[in-house]
């Protein structure tokens, strides 16, 4: 059986009765059984739910009915996204036994579109990290070179797709947590515009930044999944009322004549020379496709990491106040309420989460709010303006996704600031609220994948998906 399935391949095989959805599901669980001990990419499996859905799909086929858009497609869900009846830990000890009583809207929509939910994927604790080494349940390994990190925080979601342990997956992106692991594992990965996908049921990290988005083996698969989960949800007041285009049907529209901004500010020091070489080759390929590269300036790029780590940690310190040992999760018994709060939180959170709670509380505290948080919010406005100005001149922006390819496990764990700098090219789009996709753009050192990142204007997902698709079809992965 082929290792790499696409959504179309699954639907064709099922419709042609080459196999049943139940058999396909069993095949994926067999693969997980064989391979996941080494990768550590799944935290929980939901076979009962998966087989029940598979039987429904097989019923549709038996009745000669048409398959829904994701009919029979096995999909994995990052463990910060709520799944009814399946333990959802956020990669944290504090939620070790937490079983959500409801599904996230994105999960409901996937299942309504026919997807089979295989299980939950490992991630950095509360999605805080760039290497997946901050999970309380151990790091995920990059399936391409096993001694490397898969990227983070959605490392498990990237690894399972790359390793053929799911056809596609959902991750979340706050500062690069979908795009960077997509780049490091060599698969397409997308964050839609802020507001494009409902976050109802997403366990919050930084509410003005968090977004749910897909990983797939192809750009078209990413488009199909985004289309299935996008759109207004009355349960999330930040989900937009803007109509959802038919991303996958429009994916092969011509890209000739598109103007692609190349921000010089993204090609400074700190970038690996191999990555630079591949990204430059990628830009040449875009030219061959008839696109016109345009030199642009985004002058506040260099301030994005500093801005991001103020805003994201401030919001995290507030969102994570809910873990108090009262309503769910871990409790350390103490004779008084305040002692119980302190001990529970001290014992339940891991080092990166505590560091961010301390930093976030500090930048919000009396006497420091103006110097840090308010300053950050102002610089965020300048970064968003850089994007608005750029999109007056160009249709898309192309940058590297990550300054470096997948690094060795343990290489950066003792230096939080160095780890934060891994997000240098992704955080800008997170702060601005625009959509971004990472698409494979060759390999360095023999096997380490490089990603090209494409940004579009807010709610301009269609064009960057079309661009990414044309780029992929032109052979970008083997540049």
């Amino acid at each position, binding site marked *: 059986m082929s290792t790499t399935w696409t959504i179309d391949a699954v639907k064709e095989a099922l419709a042609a009765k080459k196999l049943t959805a139940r058999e396909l599901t069993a095949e994926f669980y067999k693969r997980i059984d064989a391979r996941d001990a080494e990768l550590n990419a799944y935290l929980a499996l939901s076979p009962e739910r998966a087989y029940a859905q598979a039987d429904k799909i097989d019923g549709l086929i038996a009745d000669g009915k048409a398959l829904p858009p994701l009919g029979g497609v096995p999909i994995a869900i990052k463990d910060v996204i709520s799944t009814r009846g399946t333990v959802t830990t956020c990669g944290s000890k504090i939620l070790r036994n937490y079983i959500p009583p409801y599904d996230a809207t994105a999960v409901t929509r996937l299942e309504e579109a026919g997807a089979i939910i295989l299980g939950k994927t490992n991630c950095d604790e509360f999605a805080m990290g760039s290497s997946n080494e901050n999970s309380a349940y151990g790091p995920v390994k990059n399936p391409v070179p096993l001694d490397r990190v898969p990227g983070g925080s959605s490392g498990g979601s990237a690894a399972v797709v790359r390793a053929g342990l799911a056809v596609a997956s959902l991750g979340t992106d706050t500062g690069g947590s979908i795009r960077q692991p997509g780049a490091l594992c060599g698969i397409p990965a997308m964050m839609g515009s802020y507001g494009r996908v409902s976050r109802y049921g997403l366990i919050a990290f930084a509410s003005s930044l968090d977004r749910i988005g897909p990983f797939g083996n192809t750009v078209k698969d990413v488009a199909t999944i985004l289309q299935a989960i996008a759109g207004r949800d009355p349960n999330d007041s930040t989900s937009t009322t803007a109509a959802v285009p038919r991303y996958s049907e429009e994916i092969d529209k011509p890209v000739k004549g598109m103007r692609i901004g190349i921000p010089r500010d993204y090609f400074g020091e700190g970038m690996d020379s191999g990555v630079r070489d591949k990204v430059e080759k990628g830009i040449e390929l875009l030219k061959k496709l008839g696109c016109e590269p345009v030199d642009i300036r985004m002058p506040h790029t260099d301030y994005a990491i500093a801005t991001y780590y103020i805003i994201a940690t401030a919001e995290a*310190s507030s969102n994570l106040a809910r873990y108090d040992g009262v309503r769910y999760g871990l409790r350390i018994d103490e*004779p008084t309420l305040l002692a*119980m709060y302190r001990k529970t939180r001290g*014992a339940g959170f891991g080092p990166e989460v505590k560091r961010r709670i*301390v930093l976030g509380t500090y930048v919000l505290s009396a006497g420091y709010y103006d110097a840090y948080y308010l300053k950050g919010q102002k610089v965020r406005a300048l970064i968003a303006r850089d994007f608005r100005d750029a999109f007056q001149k160009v249709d898309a922006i192309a940058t590297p996704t990550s300054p470096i390819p997948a690094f060795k496990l343990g290489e950066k764990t003792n230096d939080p600031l160095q780890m934060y700098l891994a997000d240098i090219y992704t955080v800008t789009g997170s702060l601005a609220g625009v959509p971004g996709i990472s698409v494979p753009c060759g390999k360095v050192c023999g096997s380490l994948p490089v990603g090209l990142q494409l940004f579009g204007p807010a709610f301009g997902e269609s064009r960057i998906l079309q661009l990414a698709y044309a780029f992929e079809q032109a052979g970008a992965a083997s540049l």
Partner: protein
Amino acid sequence: MKISREDVVRVAELAYLDLSETELETYRAQIDEILEYVGKLNELDTAGVEPMAQVLADDQTADATLREDTVVPCGIAVAILPQAPDPDPPFFRVPKVIER
């Protein structure tokens, strides 16, 4: 030095976060380095810049206009209480709050 040990103690107190002596010092040093880096924002003159408190424009969400304030029963107490460390249906039980 941007942040002192006393600052970290005070902030951990505000966040109800129990930290060991080792954690206090490790986080102080690391956060000091991060704040040093964050200091680069002061290179930018932001006088007259409106802070970005909203990501979406007003016309992009349905809730930009006020919605009806209607009570909708959710009936989820039965499903939620078993998740609690110490449930006493229909209540969550906590250690003593007030000393007599």
